[in-house]
């Protein structure tokens, strides 16, 4: 389901409420609150479109404050691409702005840095370049706003070396302790080799996109799409071209309800502790009742032993009956209340136990997501067979694919609730979170169970389960997704 689909659904819902409770303000607020917390406005742009967009900004600023386009570009890049802010800053303090943007040196009376030996002054027609130590005619020298004079050949060698190392917009003056940056036209005028020029432009464009808060490169392999959002937030983006789904703010896999910082910490922790966690990645467990070895080959965590028909939970190996809607606690980690008084060893063991609790569930849902992808293929095969047998048409079975897609969406969010819970401090808010998480998990497992066993075109029951699961998911996000 794409972002637009969700939006349009949402709007229809809102309108219904608006018409129904037209005069009741409280209810209107409620309708507002029901707005999808995941909705996000963005567009996918091609490189040429972004180039055009950036050039328009450059032109606008250069006209507004009367500087060259190249200088305007440097100002936009170093100061964050907000025209209004830069214009205000510039009008208030032009010199200060140019210093902040590293266009001019902070200290205006830098001693004319033409090295101790022979400065290229008017009465000396063959000054020495302080980089190559060669004497050259005055017209061979060039300098940035800081006044550090170097010969053209040294400038171009300097640019070449920097570009080969991947540096572009941060290329600066060659003077000692000088931080003044070289604007684009200065660099391009002095680069002779076409391949270096091409590289410089490519790297510079990459830097411009990275410094622009509204733009982000699609992280998909070999994808050159650039996503633009006018309100940059940690929300889900799906690339129109390669279909990669990622977080707009940090560019990694989408991770609601966990925030960018937390998910980074969690993934680093998982990578560090992978050896410890390796032993739990085994794919088999024994049935808690008859102890026969069971391999999990589906995504659903509600297991039924093929041998003794015992229903149990794959995660905690508890009886599935106690996982009913009333009392589902498998997702919750029970902290030892007296841990502060225990020995350091016991505390370390407890810390590991806690981490493993969350890691096991995180990893298990990742696996379930992969297994449920296979389930989707099986569903498609099954539909084909059913249609061939003339039990229902292809359209009659379509709902099953929708259900599988919804299941994947819900389980994806559920997976990302575990890092969130791991870093949450104990207290009523965590209890509420874990309660909602448990509810979501229970409904997801019900849905998964039903999808894996759907044998009729009786879709009412499944549709109902889909609605419940999605409601649980959106409630949890509404309450805990902070953007």
């Amino acid at each position: 389901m794409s972002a637009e689909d969700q939006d349009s659904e949402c709007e229809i819902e809102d309108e219904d409420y608006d018409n129904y409770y037209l005069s009741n303000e409280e209810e209107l607020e409620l309708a507002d609150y029901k707005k999808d917390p995941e909705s996000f406005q963005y567009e996918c742009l091609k490189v040429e479109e972004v180039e055009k967009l950036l050039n328009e900004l450059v032109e606008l600023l250069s006209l507004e404050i009367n500087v060259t386009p190249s200088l305007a570009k440097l100002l936009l890049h170093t100061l964050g691409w907000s025209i209004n802010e830069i214009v205000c800053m510039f009008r208030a303090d032009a010199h200060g702005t140019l210093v902040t943007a590293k266009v001019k040196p902070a200290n205006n009376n830098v001693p004319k840095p033409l090295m101790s030996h022979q400065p290229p002054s008017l009465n000396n027609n063959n000054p020495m370049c302080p980089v190559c130590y060669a004497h050259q005619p005055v017209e061979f020298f060039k300098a940035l706003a800081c006044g550090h004079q170097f010969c053209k050949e040294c400038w171009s060698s300097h640019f070449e070396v920097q570009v080969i190392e991947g540096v572009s917009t941060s290329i600066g003056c060659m003077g000692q302790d000088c931080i003044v940056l070289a604007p684009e036209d200065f660099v391009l005028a002095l680069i002779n080799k076409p391949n270096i020029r091409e590289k410089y432009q490519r790297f510079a464009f990459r830097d411009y996109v990275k410094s622009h808060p509204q733009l982000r490169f699609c992280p998909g392999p070999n994808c050159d799409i650039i996503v633009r959002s006018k309100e940059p937030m940690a929300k889900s983006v799906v690339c129109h071209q390669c279909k990669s789904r990622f977080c707009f703010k940090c560019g990694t896999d989408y991770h609601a309800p966990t925030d960018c910082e937390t998910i980074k910490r969690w993934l680093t922790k998982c990578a560090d502790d992978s050896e410890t966690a390796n032993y739990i990645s085994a794919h088999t467990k024994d049935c808690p009742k008859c102890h026969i070895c069971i391999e999990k080959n589906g995504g659903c965590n509600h297991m039924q032993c093929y041998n003794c028909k015992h229903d149990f939970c794959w995660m905690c190996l508890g009886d599935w009956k106690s996982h009913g809607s009333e009392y589902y606690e498998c997702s919750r980690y029970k902290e030892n209340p007296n841990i502060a008084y225990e020995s350091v060893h016991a505390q370390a063991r407890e810390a590991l136990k806690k981490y493993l609790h969350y890691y096991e569930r995180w990893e298990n849902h990742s696996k379930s997501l992969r297994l449920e992808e296979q389930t989707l293929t099986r569903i498609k095969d099954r539909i084909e067979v059913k249609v061939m047998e003339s039990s229902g048409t292809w359209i009659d079975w379509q709902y099953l694919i929708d259900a599988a897609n919804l299941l994947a969406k819900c389980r994806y969010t559920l997976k990302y609730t575990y890092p969130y819970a791991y870093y949450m401090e104990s207290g009523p808010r965590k209890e509420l979170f874990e309660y909602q998480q448990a509810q979501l998990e229970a409904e997801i497992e019900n849905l998964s169970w039903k999808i894996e066993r759907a044998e009729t075109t009786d879709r009412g029951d499944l549709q109902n389960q889909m609605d419940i699961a999605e409601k649980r998911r959106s409630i949890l996000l509404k309450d805990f997704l902070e953007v």
Partner: protein
Amino acid sequence: MANIATQRIKREFKEVVKSEEVARCAIRIDLVNDSWSELRGEIAGPPDTPYEGGVFALEIVVPETYPFNPPKVRFLTKIWHPNISSVTGAICLDILKDQWAAAMTLRTVLLSLQALLAAAEPDDPQDAVVARQYKEYHNIFKTTAQHWTAVYAGGPNRIAEYENRVTRLIDMGVDELTARAVLSANNWDLERATETIFS
């Protein structure tokens, strides 16, 4: 080696030879071979530091792209300093990395290194063990640096007590270099050093 690099090095070489620092025996540069791509540097330990009285040899490798890239410099003489590896002699100094500017010279590099010996930056360490000692046991750091200067760089203050402990470890069959390094890293605690070596 590129033309400009050789030309620069030749000029710089002359500059250092003629400079006033050479007159004061503070810095020195020698050629290693005819190619001008490898040089040997020397700096004197700055006064009023634990390195006073020592002379430290440096390996200087001049890259093809010099002076647009910095020279590669490391200490050949062993030295006890937070920003210099006590094992390899590798140096953590910004002007030898991203703060290099083409207008800098070998002379400025050597003078910067001398300044680094006088003012360590323990928060940006190359050698974490030394940096920790510098911050937590500054007196031990100072005597250790003095001792290393005496042993490896010809400084005046060889500390007898430290030498005794090194000898004790040598008697146990440990080689001298390891013995001194491990003792230094363990704040000269003989027991802990023994434990580190034999466990």
